């Protein structure tokens, strides 16, 4: 075992982690621990753009953006955070441009902007061009630009280091972050990083679904690490299903395709979104569009011999426009479906895409131990966190924005805290949890296989807690997850080695997914209303009287060692917008 000491440790090197690192490296001795090489992070898969009311191509302002974000989140958004997001969006985009990001340009040379779902002029009058973009590879450009600037700033990376545990020490009755424990993939060695500040920026957990746009590596490692240490997870029942995943594969096809004029059609060729969202049509918010697609399919208007998908039609757009604005997604259709989008509509279905919930933070990116108490020295930003700027449903282009606004805030806040704070003493045998976990898996002689348990988990999540949920389906999921968690105790791996043991790490990742799936299902069962991405067929309406509140889920360990999820609730911050019925 090795012990390292840094002022600031950042867990994850996607957009939020690297944006934080650029700030914290200037101000404090910083280490970035990442289970992948930084440029492999899933920020790179984001396509359509980053919202900011630059008003480069038409009238716009940050207040309209705030309203759209609050409405898009079905009023579960903390409005103080949404205001910060929309206001600081403008500088965030300009920061990236100055760092070198190659945005698409208008004929005048300013940053070009395009339409995106849920973003509107003057509180819902009509779609507005607010998304700053670089073709359909905006996430790729953000990831590359941030990595380039990390190289420029000399950021210190520990590549292929898996953070498996959060260290917390109680000082005078206050829980403080003391550091993290990491596993080095290349050698199997355990490393303890003592740090004054720790920032989680480790991304989402979409791999508990089968049809998902998420990378294989999005297994909720950060959420699971803090949850196991008794810290809460907020609003985990809210998961976004992106309307346009490639049929059966789940690969993302950007909403920018509809922003450029693409249309969703059912088997009769009907533009069905006109029925569900008369004003915004195909550019309604994602939860609305995904439900509309499944409604069409359930009512027998789906496409194909099985009637199990609908079409994204781009055939009326000029090929030059597709080549210039949507080159990657048209190539995906050609590569994976053998379809020519110039002439053929693309079969799509909703795909599990984004966790609105996560580690609760305040607007300074400080992690909360309960509804109000900050954990000194602990920060989170990006998809792993819940500020909450996305509420019950995130708007497209607000996640690339979130990682930049709150990544920057986390980097500054963590480094400033580290400059004033002392190191917190490490717990006794800080590595013990990880050593025990690794050795148990490496030496297990059980008869359960990681791949089989993961398949069963993904099947039950897709079948029971996806776009439509009921008491019955969620209970089925809760029971199945409990069974899988029990069987997980008997999981065994084949690779017993130290070197690049990805077999071992897939087993660890499955454990994280099972923990988070349980939190999600239990949180969803208790929310007896429909709001944003959480749709209960047995409670189809939003219930502001009983459920205008954030879910806070805690891990409880009984005297007999049994684990349960305890739910509590946190009020929503409302400033200028009163909840209204949500129509697009």
């Amino acid at each position, binding site marked *: 075992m090795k012990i390292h000491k840094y002022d600031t440790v950042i867990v994850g090197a996607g957009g939020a982690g690297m944006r934080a690192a650029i700030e914290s490296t200037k101000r404090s001795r910083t280490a970035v621990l990442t289970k*992948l*090489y930084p*440029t*492999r992070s*899933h920020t*790179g*898969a984001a396509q359509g753009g980053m919202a900011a009311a630059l008003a480069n191509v038409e009238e716009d302002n940050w207040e309209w953006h705030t309203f759209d974000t609050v409405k898009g989140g079905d009023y579960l958004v903390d409005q103080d955070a949404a205001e910060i997001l929309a206001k600081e969006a403008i500088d965030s985009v*300009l920061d990236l441009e*100055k760092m*070198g990001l*190659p945005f698409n*340009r*208008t*004929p*005048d*040379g*300013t940053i070009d902007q395009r339409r995106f779902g849920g973003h509107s002029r003057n509180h819902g009058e009509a779609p507005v061009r607010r998304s700053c973009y*670089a073709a359909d*590879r905006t996430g*790729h*450009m953000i990831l*590359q630009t941030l990595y*380039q*600037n990390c*190289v*420029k700033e000399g950021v210190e990376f520990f590549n292929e280091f898996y953070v498996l545990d959060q260290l917390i020490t109680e000082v005078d009755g206050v829980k403080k972050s003391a550091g993290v424990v990491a596993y080095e993939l*290349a050698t199997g060695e355990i490393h303890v990083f003592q740090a004054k500040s720790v920032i989680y920026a480790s991304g989402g957990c979409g791999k508990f679904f089968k*049809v998902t746009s998420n*990378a*294989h*590596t999005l297994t909720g490692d950060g959420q699971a690490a803090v949850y196991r240490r008794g810290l809460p997870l907020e609003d985990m029942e809210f998961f976004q299903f992106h309307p346009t995943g490639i*049929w*059966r*594969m789940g*690969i993302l096809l950007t909403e920018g395709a509809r922003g450029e004029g693409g249309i969703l059609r059912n088997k009769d060729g009907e533009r069905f979104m006109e029925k569900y969202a008369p004003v915004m049509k195909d550019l309604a918010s994602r939860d609305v569009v995904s439900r509309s697609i499944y409604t069409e399919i*359930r009512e027998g208007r789906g496409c194909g011999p*099985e*009637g*199990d998908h609908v079409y994204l039609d781009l055939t009326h757009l000029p090929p030059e426009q597709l080549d210039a604005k949507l080159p*990657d997604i048209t190539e995906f259709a050609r*590569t*994976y479906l053998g379809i020519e989008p110039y002439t053929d509509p693309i079969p799509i279905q909703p795909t599990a895409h984004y966790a609105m919930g996560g580690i609760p933070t305040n607007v300074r990116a400080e992690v909360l131990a309960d509804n109000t108490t900050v954990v000194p020295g602990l920060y989170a930003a990006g998809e792993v966190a819940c500020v909450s700027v996305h509420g019950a449903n995130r708007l497209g282009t607000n996640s690339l924005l979130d990682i930049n606004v709150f990544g920057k805030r986390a980097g500054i806040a963590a480094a400033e805290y580290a400059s004033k704070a002392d190191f917190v003493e490490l717990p006794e045998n800080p590595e013990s949890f990880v050593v025990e976990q690794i050795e148990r898996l490496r030496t297990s002689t059980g008869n359960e*296989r*990681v*791949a089989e348990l993961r398949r069963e988990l993904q099947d039950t999540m897709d*079948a*029971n*807690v996806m*776009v439509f*949920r*009921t008491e019955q389906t969620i209970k089925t999921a809760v029971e199945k997850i409990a069974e899988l968690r029990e069987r997980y105790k008997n999981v065994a791996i*084949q*690779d017993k*080695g*130290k*070197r*690049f*043991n*990805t*077999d071992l790490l897939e087993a660890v990742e499955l454990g994280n997914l099972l923990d988070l799936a349980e939190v999600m299902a239990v949180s969803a069962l208790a929310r007896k209303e429909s709001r944003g991405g959480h749709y209960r067929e047995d409670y189809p309406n939003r219930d502001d009287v009983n459920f205008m509140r954030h879910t806070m889920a805690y891990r409880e360990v009984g005297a007999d060692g049994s684990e349960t999820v305890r739910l509590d609730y946190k009020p929503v911050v409302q400033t200028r917008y009163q909840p209204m019925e949500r129509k697009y």
Partner: protein
Amino acid sequence: MATPVLDKVEAQSAASPYITVTFRVRRFNPEVSDEATWEDFQLEIDPKERVLDGLHKIKWDLDGTLTFRRSCAHGICGSDAMRINGRNRLACKTLIKDINPEKPITVEPIKGLTVLKDLVVDMEPFFQAYRDVMPFLITKETNEPTRERLQSPEDRALFDDTTKCILCAACTSSCPVFWNDGQYFGPAAIVNAHRFIFDSRDEAGEQRLEILNDKDGVWRCRTTFNCTDACPRGIEVTKAIAEVKRALITRRF
């Protein structure tokens, strides 16, 4: 029922025409042996699936010790560049049906970088060459503009192709010059230098050109086009290298 749709998708994929293919994979684990060997695996697979899906079937159902890097699984993250049937490709962007499944499909690590285990190579020399070309925007102005810098769509188009690079190393590890001499910067580093040399906002083009004027620089390129053929992003790598060579001669860019 929550989502009957997905059951049907399942039914359909179960009914799809599975074929039997042989994956012939280069194995190496220094914890076990100093020798690399070939190992054959028989798989039932839908020819519309990816080579990566085949590798996952091996790892998940047959042999958990098989080791490779992967993440996004759709050609964006650059983790899974491999030598498949003798050519550098991304395993997640290569469909079984497109590489003649009648014969054994060979899968080996990319060449020119030290193999650490099975298909995993040491990427550090590759990233070092990337860092050496100063892959970041450099400007000399003392007062930053309050708004964005302006750039015409025409100027933006000049370096569009080289912004697509995902640093997968498929190009560099397909280059015979790089195989023979690990000191050569390699195509990927030159592509990333090109991305800034031809960016109208950047003011360090001369410095980058001097770095590439080195004996291990751009003149080592023998124009074999392996890099262009290997690039999973369709970047015209050889053309970009030629543009850098031309800029070195004319000092115009």
